[in-house]
């Protein structure tokens, strides 16, 4: 009796519900607080002169705040996406059912992506009300790219280690620091850091994407490709490895 086709698709509603309860509400609250604390005082001080458009001197701040909210949201969303079930032992009952762990977690990754985009839609709608030139669609495009880029690596780390939140933050920060340090220096180190996650491309991509809805194709492909590669590696590791420790 393995009927009931689309069981995993039906289960996606439970996965989305879990996202909203466990992560979505937190992302929206943190995003609102982050925006309010950093942007509202400036808006109040500057009044009508605040961020009227991309040429405004405060526009880079808007970009910095909103892009960092995306990174934070992805970090919250991907935290423990696989490792929690393994750490807590929830995998035992889940995967005694006729379900592929690879398909289950691949679906979870995309359900959480939808969840993150819904959260970003809410936050960007509020932002648009405060700063009318802020384009919701551009922001959602940027969020989708970062979800795949950062989330793909996060997914892999969550499959490979129990300390995924910390490891992803360390990888993200470490890549940026190592690139700043060695990227321009001659020798093998500069070539080696090229293999690290392309976090250095985020500043340019975020400014360009959120402002204009476009970004250099090579940068976007590099970000998406890197994330997609690690997502695929995560699925492979899940397929080949053990669910139990």
């Amino acid at each position, binding site marked *: 009796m393995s009927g009931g086709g689309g069981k995993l698709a039906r*289960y996606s509603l439970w996965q989305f519900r879990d996202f909203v309860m466990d992560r979505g509400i937190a992302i929206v609250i943190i995003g609102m607080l982050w925006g309010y604390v950093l942007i509202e005082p400036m808006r109040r001080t500057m009044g009508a002169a605040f961020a009227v458009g991309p040429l405004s001197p405060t526009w880079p701040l808007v970009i910095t705040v909103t892009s960092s909210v995306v990174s934070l949201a992805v970090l919250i969303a991907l935290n423990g996406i696989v490792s929690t079930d393994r750490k807590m032992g929830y995998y035992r009952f889940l995967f*005694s059912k006729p*379900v592929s762990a690879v398909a289950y977690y691949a679906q979870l990754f995309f359900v959480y992506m939808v969840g993150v985009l819904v959260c970003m839609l809410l936050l960007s709608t509020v932002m648009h009300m405060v700063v009318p030139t802020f384009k919701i669609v551009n922001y959602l495009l940027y969020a989708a790219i970062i979800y795949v880029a950062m989330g793909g690596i996060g997914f892999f780390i969550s499959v490979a280690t129990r300390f995924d939140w910390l490891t992803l933050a360390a990888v993200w920060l470490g890549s940026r620091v190592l690139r700043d340090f060695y990227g321009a220096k001659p020798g093998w180190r500069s070539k080696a850091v090229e293999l690290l996650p392309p976090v250095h491309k985020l500043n340019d991509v975020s400014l360009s994407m959120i402002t204009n809805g476009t970004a250099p194709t090579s940068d976007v492909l590099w970000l998406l490709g890197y994330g997609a590669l690690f997502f695929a590696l995560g699925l492979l590791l899940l397929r080949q490895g053990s669910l139990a420790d």
Partner: protein
Amino acid sequence: MAGVPAPSDDCDTAALVIEFRNVGKTYRSLLGNSVKAVEEFSLQVNEGEILGIAGPNGAGKTTLIAMMLGYLQPTTGTVEINGLPARSYVEHNGVGYLSELIAINPKWRADTALVRYATLAGIPEREIPAHVDAAIEKLGLAEHRDKKVKALSKGNLQRLGLAQALLRDEEILVLDEPTHGLDPVWTQRFRDIVEDLRRPDRTILIASHNLDELQRLADRVAIIDHGRLQRVVSTGYDHSRQSATRFRLILAKGHERIREWFPDAEEAGKDEYDVTVGSIQELNSALADLISKGGLVASVVPERSVLEQQFREAVGESK
């Protein structure tokens, strides 16, 4: 006798369902230390059989089950279910599994947890409420169905774990320490449930510390220790076994002549004796003679169950 399954009359003609073939599992730490959890384990489990797995703590029971469900990859050997690699079989067919540690998200409600598992089990959506209600009814969880999992007592959580394993009409059931945390009433109820589950086309594995439980429920019991199969014991009250057996004998009359029939009888209380016999036939013959000469037997109780004795011998040997 390690690694050699005992012959079983019923099982000779039954189809092979689960096969452990020379399975080993070694855990290695990052520092290079290694621990052998399971070694050279070979065993076949047949359709319609209830197989018990007994062993002391740390013997490797749970590791074996994890490999059987495909949660762990064996370091050596293979585990197959119906000719498929274990994980592949479980992914396509599912099994009813009750783990030793019941790990269900504590934020979930008891009944919605069952709905989730039923959805994953592939039960058609319109049939899910009936399956969930039936499982709740069977496990006596009606008054707890609205509670969060974190609010359930140990026994109720154990029953919820069993309920999710019984949601579907599974061909294979794997129950790891199933009565752990259950009160005596529910321990007995569990035994009745397992007896009801016995079916010619269903295979059931029960890992337990409780030898009495395995003696009552299982057809055969695999005794493992130090990750190795020590022996497989048929629990069908094997009267032909030749090893010594001790009984507690209580006499209402004739105790002054007890040593005529049981020369090694040891006093264990007023009119109570521990006697050692070579076989059940020898015991019956001695008792018949005793009774024919005016003795009255009030009670004969095995000092240890067959399984317990085998277990002690097997675990003792492995040490």
